[in-house]
């Protein structure tokens, strides 16, 4: 039986009372679904907005968290959808394996990674997570469980990868892990004085496996786009020295620290954000360094509940991608608008994306993606509407996993395969069985 609980995404905006079901096995889930009016799967609640909320029926997938099989020769892993990425890393990193694509937090489920078709700092070369997915099992909620892959039920596969959980419950998946020699990253930091220089550095750094830039989004005028660009490779064991070389896969212990309370709203005032940006920029001195894998990929996981620094009202993350040809002009307009408003966050991330994904609603496209946090104030929400217009003008789109407030009209401008997705939902009867606050808001 369900119980009612106030739920939100990671941004803690919006918060809604949801009837929460907590099946303990895939079989229990299978029996739960058919009589439900309409439901949505919820992984570890790391989507920022309302993608994992359905007041009528939200299904907590975290107890479906078993590893099923691992092939030591090929690295192929089969697991249930509620397995946490952090569990996979804890289990397999010591044996020299890592995931082919990782988002910026380890605290996500595999089902969530598929539903969001997550990307990482290697997108320009490796593509998104679903580009590596071998297959998934999808419970359609009407008694059918279908194996989906590029070969079997390929349309359903393309709709499910990046499909925000709206095509059924992902219950199992298979994907290969990649070989690594150490738990360390060789990182090179470059400085860019402005946006043009940052983009030029990305374009000349395609050979690096991982790349990302931190933008001081409050820098204005000729400093617009001032940033630190971080390039990295997995370090080979031979690049390590001393005790690290003897145990290259050992991870230095990290003691997670927590934000104990909701900080008051003024803690994130413009002055504080500016000071933090300047500090962070200074810290990222140009040069080469060895960095441990966890703080490299998951800097914010060290501070559990970091979403509380935005206080009780919550925050929204704005992430858009602009096509390559429009990126420079579009990013400049976005950054100017954000800088003029003076309410941006310290989290301003720029990343060159590679190929488009095969997923019908997948976010990535060749170009540049920008991501920032904003406290969920009325002024900021109005600002984001202006950013939507700029993004759409330049042929870009918004990442649904981060979204809590986009309009249906803006969605349609950014996702050309939207109708195909809707038609497929209708064809399988999925539009009646699966919905979330996000899908209701956007007419998905």
């Amino acid at each position, binding site marked *: 039986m369900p*119980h*009612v*609980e106030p739920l939100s995404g990671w941004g803690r905006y919006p918060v809604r009372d949801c009837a929460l079901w907590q099946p303990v096995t895939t079989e229990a889930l299978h029996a739960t679904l058919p009589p439900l009016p309409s439901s949505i799967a919820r992984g570890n609640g790391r989507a920022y907005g309302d993608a994992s909320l359905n007041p009528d029926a939200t299904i907590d997938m975290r107890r479906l968290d078993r590893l099923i*099989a691992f092939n030591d020769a090929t690295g192929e892993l089969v697991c249930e959808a509620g397995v946490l990425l952090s569990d996979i890393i804890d289990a397999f990193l010591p044996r020299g394996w890592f995931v082919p694509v990782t988002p910026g937090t380890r605290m996500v489920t595999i089902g969530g990674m598929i539903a969001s078709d997550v990307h990482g700092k290697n997108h320009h070369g490796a593509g998104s997570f679903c580009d590596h997915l071998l297959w998934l099992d999808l419970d359609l909620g009407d008694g059918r469980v279908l194996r989906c892959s590029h070969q079997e039920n390929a349309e359903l596969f393309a709709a499910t990868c990046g499909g925000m959980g709206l095509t059924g419950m992902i219950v199992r998946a298979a994907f290969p892990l990649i070989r690594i020699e150490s738990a360390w990253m060789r990182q090179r930091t470059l400085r860019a004085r402005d946006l043009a220089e940052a983009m030029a550095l990305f374009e000349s750094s395609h050979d690096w496996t991982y790349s990302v830039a931190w933008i001081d989004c409050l820098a204005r005028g000729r400093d617009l786009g001032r940033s630190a660009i971080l390039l990295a490779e997995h370090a080979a064991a031979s690049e390590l020295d001393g005790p690290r070389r003897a145990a290259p896969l050992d991870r230095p212990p990290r003691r997670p620290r927590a934000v104990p309370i909701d900080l008051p709203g003024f803690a994130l005032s413009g002055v504080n954000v500016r000071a933090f940006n300047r500090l962070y920029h200074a810290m990222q001195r140009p040069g080469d360094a060895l960095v441990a894998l966890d703080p490299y990929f998951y800097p914010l996981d060290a501070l559990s509940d970091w979403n509380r620094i935005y206080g009780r009202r919550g925050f929204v993350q704005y992430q858009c991608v602009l096509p390559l040809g429009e990126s420079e002009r579009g990013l400049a307009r976005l950054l100017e608008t954000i800088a003029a408003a003076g309410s941006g966050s310290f989290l301003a991330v720029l990343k060159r994306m590679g190929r488009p994904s095969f997923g019908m609603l997948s976010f990535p496209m060749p170009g540049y993606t920008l991501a920032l946090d904003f406290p969920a104030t009325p002024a900021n929400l109005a600002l984001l509407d202006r950013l939507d217009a700029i993004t759409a003008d330049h042929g870009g789109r918004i990442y649904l996993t981060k979204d809590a407030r986009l309009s249906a009209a803006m969605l349609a401008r950014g996702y050309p395969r939207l109708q195909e997705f809707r038609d497929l939902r209708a064809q399988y009867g999925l539009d009646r069985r699966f919905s979330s606050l996000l899908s209701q808001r956007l007419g998905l």
Partner: protein
Amino acid sequence: MIASPVLILGARSDIGKALARGYAAQGCEVILAGRGDIAADATDLGLRSGAKARAVAFDVTDGAPDRFFDSLGVVPGTVVMVAGLLGDQAESAADDSAAQRVMDSNFNGPARYLLAAARRMAGVPDGCIIGISSVAGERGRASNFVYGSAKAGFTAFLSGLRNAHAKTGLHVMTVKPGFVRTQMTAGMKLPPVMTAEPGQVADAIIAAHRARRDVIYTLGRWRLVMAVIRAIPEPLFKRLSL
């Protein structure tokens, strides 16, 4: 030292699952005993940690503990009793069979299984029996006294078993977790500062096991809270709704 194999009785529960993962991560061989598709859990455990893990069917109320241990094939080094049933107080008060289910799942079954374990474990080096009891056993309250009294009995049982084996070298540990966010408490409004995650409980138990502690509250604050609750005079206590 933790003696292997570690037998988890009630391994499909959230605390049982967390304990199995915790012990396996320490390199212990683990035997999962529970209902349902427990074999998949053993596979999962082996993949996660590389530890040896297997599964056996187990029902704490089946009244056949000797048959269970005889068919196990080995004498465990460590036995953890996690099985239990919160039940519903109103249902237990109204329906004799519901009350019996709660009593069997929290006292009769666990005590008989641990007696059967103790009969076989005398002389096992570093042998240890761990019972998950409850703070609810420290004072009977209107809201859950069928469950609470069975746990009170189980706490007394563990205390006696510990006393009986003080000289045989078999260690017995009592665990009182307080509120834990599990299937058992889903939907209950739990005060966050007094509520632990299953992983926290498992970590505390394994650390206390290594230190060979006798009685632990996995969340230390409960020790104080229960001291206060125990100290309230009965004439006053009976009028309270706690």
